[in-house]
């Protein structure tokens, strides 16, 4: 058990790395998609709507296969400047996870933006703030406050989702766990070790999200 523990621990950096890179990239995508959806112009909101529908309606594993195997079928992609990224399972994993969290979080952010009371926007207009300033100084801070609890859940889902990249040969926590299971045939033991590592990571995320919520003065619904 000790031996497998130390082997599986070696996968933690890769899991954390993939999760943090795609989460950060995903936030930008999510804000862009959310703004497109509430823009009021059909030309902007429809593509955003279908993008979110497509991503939320299909399994992540399928999206990963599509990016990793499906796109590489074409000559023009293999010759494009994106190829150095798309031929690496690592970047395919990050691209897929970024797109996925971008779609899911855009809904959270959209909900947050829509919950900002119109009175605030009108008030800041009356005070002479520009549209951009209103967004940065009024809408965004309130949105963050509203969206944070749901976004905490999304972070946990991302940690869980990152396990799928083990299927395209990346040796993160689940990848190493699977290799050990198929060698030793001790599934329960390895499950306990890998599972506790994931639970620990998610527990730490919950603590940080709770701290941030308290700092921002979010009252817990009881």
């Amino acid at each position, binding site marked *: 058990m000790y031996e497998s523990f130390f082997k599986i621990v070696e996968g933690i950096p890769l899991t954390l790395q993939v999760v943090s890179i795609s989460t950060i990239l995903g936030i930008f995508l999510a804000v862009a998609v959310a703004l497109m959806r509430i823009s009021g112009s059909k030309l902007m909101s429809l593509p955003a709507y279908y993008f979110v529908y497509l991503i939320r309606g*299909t399994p*992540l594993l399928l999206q990963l296969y599509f990016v990793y195997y499906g796109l590489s079928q074409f000559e023009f992609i293999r010759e494009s400047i994106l190829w150095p990224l798309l031929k690496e399972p690592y970047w395919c994993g990050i691209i897929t996870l970024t797109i996925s969290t971008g779609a899911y979080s855009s809904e959270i952010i959209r909900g947050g933006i829509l919950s900002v009371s119109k009175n605030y926007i009108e008030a800041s207009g009356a005070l002479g703030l520009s549209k951009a300033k209103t967004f940065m100084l009024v809408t965004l801070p309130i949105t963050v406050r509203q969206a944070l609890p749901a976004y905490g859940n999304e972070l946990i889902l991302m940690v869980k989702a990152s396990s799928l990249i083990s299927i395209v040969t990346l040796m993160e926590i689940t990848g190493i766990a699977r290799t050990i299971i198929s060698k030793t045939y001790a599934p329960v033991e390895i499950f306990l070790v890998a599972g506790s590592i994931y639970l620990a990571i998610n527990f730490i995320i919950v603590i940080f999200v709770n701290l941030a919520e308290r700092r921002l003065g979010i009252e817990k619904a009881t």
Partner: protein
Amino acid sequence: MFDVFALGPTGWGDEMLMGAVMTVLVSSSSLLLGITIGIIFAACKLSNFFILRAIAEVYTTIIRGIPELLVIYLLFFGGSSAVMYLAKIFGYMGYIELNAFTIGTIAVGAISGAYSTEVIRGAVNSVPKGQFEVGKTLGFSRYSLYGKIIFPQVARIALPGIGNVWQITLKDTALISVTGLVEIMRQSRIAAGSTHEPFIFYTAAIILYLLITRLSNIVFDSAEKKYSKGYVSREAI
């Protein structure tokens, strides 16, 4: 370009459709198992016994905190030996192997059970307290109070939540493809491998999943409409 989807032995059309049928079958049986588990563990979470509450809490925390893939690996590699171990206690010494469908149903059912537990618990909690009190005052037994008064209301309130669990379950079944069950995901992998047309087959798989999602949305929406007849939403009051 569409020759590859011909029906019969020349194309992959019928195989892909069978894959879709398998996905729907394994998702439905997982959802049924999940709802059953959900009812049991929701009852545990609402019980007065600390031990039962603790067990249910540990179950939902573990399932919701670790990757689905790990749960599937646990059952895939350990399911058969667990069943054989149980069989040995009852005196059966032979070799038992669970098929991919059973393993998949148990694994995804266990996952959707955790989500169903929360949905059902929330639904029971949102039945007004007066309903319980009136039932008791009218002399209903515990059994008929829950069977005739509480359960129908819980079913109605839980329906939208169960709809969400169904979407999660449907997508989770794609992960069973790693155990060899030939559903949409596995079938499109096989077809993509043998025709060297991964793009077309993964696109077809995406369309199949979206179709199933769309159809099930229609079913759940009409069920919701049917069972909320005569109820006014709280916002309307």
